[in-house]
């Protein structure tokens, strides 16, 4: 062994997880399971052990084996057609989504695939999207073989129904081009303006003219290309009879440009082209920072990315069919850990279906032959056969998804945003000021009307407000994403700040959804009993048995288990090493007919009841603290699809008046959110499963909690990594700080405006004053926004 024996747990060389039940010691390395060892062997044979040198324990646990024929559906031409991106006589290009990609070792291994199989020409990893583009010669290797090769080294491709009609979103690069060009023009115009600011000799009239015309030429791409971003947005808002923040900006750009052209043509001055292009450049930089999206996350997932792409049909002979081709009365074979794709009747085998993602129930449901099983659940345990009674498109889950209430697009419009409110207010003041100064000069000295009125519009351009808004939003979004809350866009920050009601889902959100919190009460158990218990419990796939097996921390695989019997919904018993061990419900073990009130299972040895195991949903870290913090400022409620087993505990946590409702169907949750909104609340919904999908959409802001942000999450406004749920209060406070920071920097920009307007209304605004005010105000606003947002994050102990 490499490590000294001081540490009691042995780390797996491949995946780094602790080796619990058994350790495979081979090649002077320790492996936690066969799977990890196999991957190591493949890599070692091919001389690719650099994989382990680049980062420590880079693999992922291979404990759960991938079913042998899992990728058989890739032999079907029709299915692979929809997956491959390019094909000619020799080569095929295909992109696989590999959610396991996480470190530099992964990248290295996947880009060296050609060393594992010579028929692979090249592979290129996109780390951000966790995808690998693979090019291979299809004469010698099939798509299925490539998928299996990836699986054999621990990177199982994730192929879902979504892949079939997937349209890759094209990255919008136009903003980057616009920014580059604006920056180029801005810098050169600035350079050309310096001579006049610094007092060029008036005798050099020719040179001045050249400089001015060159500036004008350089400003054209800024006005007609770079700033088009703002024209489009302003035009859209005007069409909806609403002034957004871009409208006054467009006005300012037009007026500045018009005035500058006029000045240059009449030889009256050099205009304000440098300030104008500078503003456009800075605003584009702000936009890009704010729009920097998380490509790897998808906020618009629907059920199709949750469904498999194909299933096994066994009508006459066994074949794989793609999901849309499943017809009524087909018989399907569902393997362990596979999803039930359509509603049907169980025709063979014993189903143990995990619906936690669909309904929120934390315990799997057991179904006997002849019972109806609904789509969306995951089969655990042995293979089952089912007869399809409803097509995929008609099944319960799909229908649920396609319900109109669930679909209503979130038309929470930006017009409610306070920034746009201020901008509108501001626009009217500016217009008024401009007209007032024009009127004044009309009376006093009509020659200066033009100069004064345009100068007011130029100076008062609310670019400072826009800058402070985009930069603050951008920075807050980045801080939040560093702390693993990924918001869909900047608008959501403001929405988070405005909420007053928080609704949680229970299973999977507040709890981990697994039964890990076990306590044993009763007579003490000897080591030999523990071993026997482990041997018995590991015979069953039921999560409670699994949890007990893990709890014993013993390995009973060498013990002889005979006469094993599992009574559905009751318990299990067997003779282990000569002793009859029974594990199950109170009725099953003790014969008592009293109703069961808690999630507990009893243990008896040779008919002698030793004690019971109490199960509790394990709450995520620091949830009680979080709820107590939130209770002080917000109304908090819990809507759960689960049974009311933990009602007392939760009621105590949330307070006597809080809504805590159990057995909630997806429609019920949606309805309650709607009702709360009608009562005038602004609701934040926090959930995880498909059963929350409707509520997440209906709520003013819906946040999906995910163990792993690459896993499937229902459509939402934001995705929060489960381990960071306890920071929710800080996230809300930071969103509130966002508004204060924008306001503060806006006040600063007003001060600059007052100075600028002091010159402007007197028709004294020289291009130089504009050129000085513009960068100073922009830079001070940048300092304020970045400084304050980082300060608030630091105060809240966020990263």
């Amino acid at each position: 062994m490499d490590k000294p024996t001081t540490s009691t747990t042995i780390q797996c060389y491949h995946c780094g997880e602790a080796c619990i039940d058994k350790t495979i010691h081979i090649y002077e390395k320790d492996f936690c399971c066969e799977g990890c060892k196999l991957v190591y062997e493949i890599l070692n044979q091919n001389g690719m052990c650099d994989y382990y040198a680049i980062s420590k324990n880079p693999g992922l646990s291979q404990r759960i084996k991938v079913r042998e024929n899992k990728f058989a559906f890739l032999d079907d031409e029709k299915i692979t057609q929809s997956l491959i991106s390019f094909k000619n006589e020799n080569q095929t290009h295909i992109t696989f989504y590999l959610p396991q990609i996480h470190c530099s070792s992964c990248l290295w291994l996947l880009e060296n695939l050609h060393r594992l199989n010579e028929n692979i020409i090249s592979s290129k990893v996109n780390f951000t999207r966790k995808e690998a583009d693979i090019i291979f010669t299809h004469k010698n290797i099939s798509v299925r073989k490539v998928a299996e090769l990836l699986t054999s080294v621990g990177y199982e491709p994730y192929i879902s129904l979504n892949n079939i009609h997937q349209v890759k979103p094209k990255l919008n690069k136009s903003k980057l081009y616009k920014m580059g060009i604006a920056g180029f023009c801005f810098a050169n115009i600035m350079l050309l303006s310096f001579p006049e600011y610094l007092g060029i000799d008036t005798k050099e009239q020719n040179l001045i003219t050249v400089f001015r015309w060159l500036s004008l030429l350089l400003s054209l791409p800024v006005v007609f290309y770079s700033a088009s971003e703002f024209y489009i947005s302003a035009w859209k808002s005007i069409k909806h009879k609403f002034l957004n923040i871009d409208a006054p900006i467009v006005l300012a750009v037009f007026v500045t440009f018009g005035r500058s052209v006029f000045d240059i043509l009449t030889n009256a001055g050099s205009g304000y082209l440098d300030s104008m292009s500078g503003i456009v450049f800075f605003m584009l930089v702000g936009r890009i920072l704010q729009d920097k999206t998380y490509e790897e996350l998808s906020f618009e997932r629907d059920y199709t990315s949750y469904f498999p792409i194909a299933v096994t049909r066994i009508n006459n002979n066994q074949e794989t069919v793609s999901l849309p081709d499943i017809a009524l009365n087909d018989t399907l074979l569902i393997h362990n850990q596979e999803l039930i794709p359509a509603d049907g009747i169980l025709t063979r085998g014993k189903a143990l279906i995990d619906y936690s993602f669909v309904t929120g129930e934390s315990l799997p449901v057991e179904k006997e032959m002849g019972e109806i099983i609904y789509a969306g659940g995951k089969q655990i345990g042995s293979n089952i056969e089912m007869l399809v009674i409803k097509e995929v498109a008609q099944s319960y889950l799909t229908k649920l998804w396609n319900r109109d209430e669930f679909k209503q697009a979130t038309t929470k419009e930006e017009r409610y945003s306070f920034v746009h409110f201020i901008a509108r207010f501001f626009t009217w003041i500016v217009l008024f000021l401009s007209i007032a100064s024009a009127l004044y000069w009309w009376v006093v000295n009509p020659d200066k009307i033009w100069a004064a009125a345009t100068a007011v519009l130029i100076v008062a351009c609310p670019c400072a407000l826009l800058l402070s808004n985009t930069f603050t939003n951008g920075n807050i979004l980045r801080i939040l994403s560093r702390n693993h809350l990924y918001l869909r866009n900047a608008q959501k920050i403001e929405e988070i700040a405005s909420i007053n009601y928080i609704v949680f889902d229970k299973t999977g959100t507040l709890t981990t959804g697994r039964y890990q919190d076990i306590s044993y009460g009763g007579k003490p158990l000897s080591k030999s009993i523990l071993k026997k218990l482990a041997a018995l419990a590991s015979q069953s796939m039921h999560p409670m048995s699994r949890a007990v097996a893990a709890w014993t921390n013993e390995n009973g695989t060498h013990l002889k288990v005979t006469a094993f019997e599992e009574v559905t919904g009751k318990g299990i018993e067997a003779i282990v090493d000569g002793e009859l061990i029974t594990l199950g419900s109170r009725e099953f073990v003790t014969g008592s007919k009293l109703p069961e009130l808690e999630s507990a299972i009893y243990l008896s040895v040779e008919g002698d009841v030793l004690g019971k195991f109490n199960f509790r949903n394990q709450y995520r870290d620091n949830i009680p603290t979080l709820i107590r913090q939130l209770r002080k400022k917000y109304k908090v409620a819990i809507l759960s699809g689960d049974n009311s087993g933990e009602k007392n505990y939760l009621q105590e946590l949330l307070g006597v008046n809080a809504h805590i409702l159990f057995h909630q169907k997806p429609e019920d949750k949606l309805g309650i959110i709607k009702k709360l909104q009608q009562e005038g609340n602004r609701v934040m919904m926090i959930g995880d499963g498909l059963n929350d999908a409707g509520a997440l959409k209906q709520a003013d802001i819906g946040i999906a909690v995910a163990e792993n942000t690459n896993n499937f999450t229902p459509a939402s406004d934001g995705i929060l990594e489960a381990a960071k749920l306890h920071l929710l209060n800080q996230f809300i406070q930071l969103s509130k700080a966002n508004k204060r920071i924008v306001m503060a920097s806006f006040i600063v920009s007003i001060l600059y405006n007052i100075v600028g307007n002091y010159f402007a209304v007197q028709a004294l605004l020289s291009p130089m004053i504009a050129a000085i005010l513009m960068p100073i105000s922009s830079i001070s606003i940048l300092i304020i926004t970045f400084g304050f947002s980082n300060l608030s994050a630091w105060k809240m102990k966020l990263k």
Partner: protein
Amino acid sequence: MSVIILLLIASISVASLFLAAFIWSVKSGQYDDEKSPPMRMLFDDKPGFTTDNNNN
């Protein structure tokens, strides 16, 4: 004066080169994936064939 014009042309053309380089870099997808290239360059000059044990 003609010197200044000359310099002007030189400076703008140099700046244009940089602009062209920027546009080319965006177009060729250098901003599409900002995470893999910095890792990829670490592996460029690794020796080709290594086994983990009894290699030396």
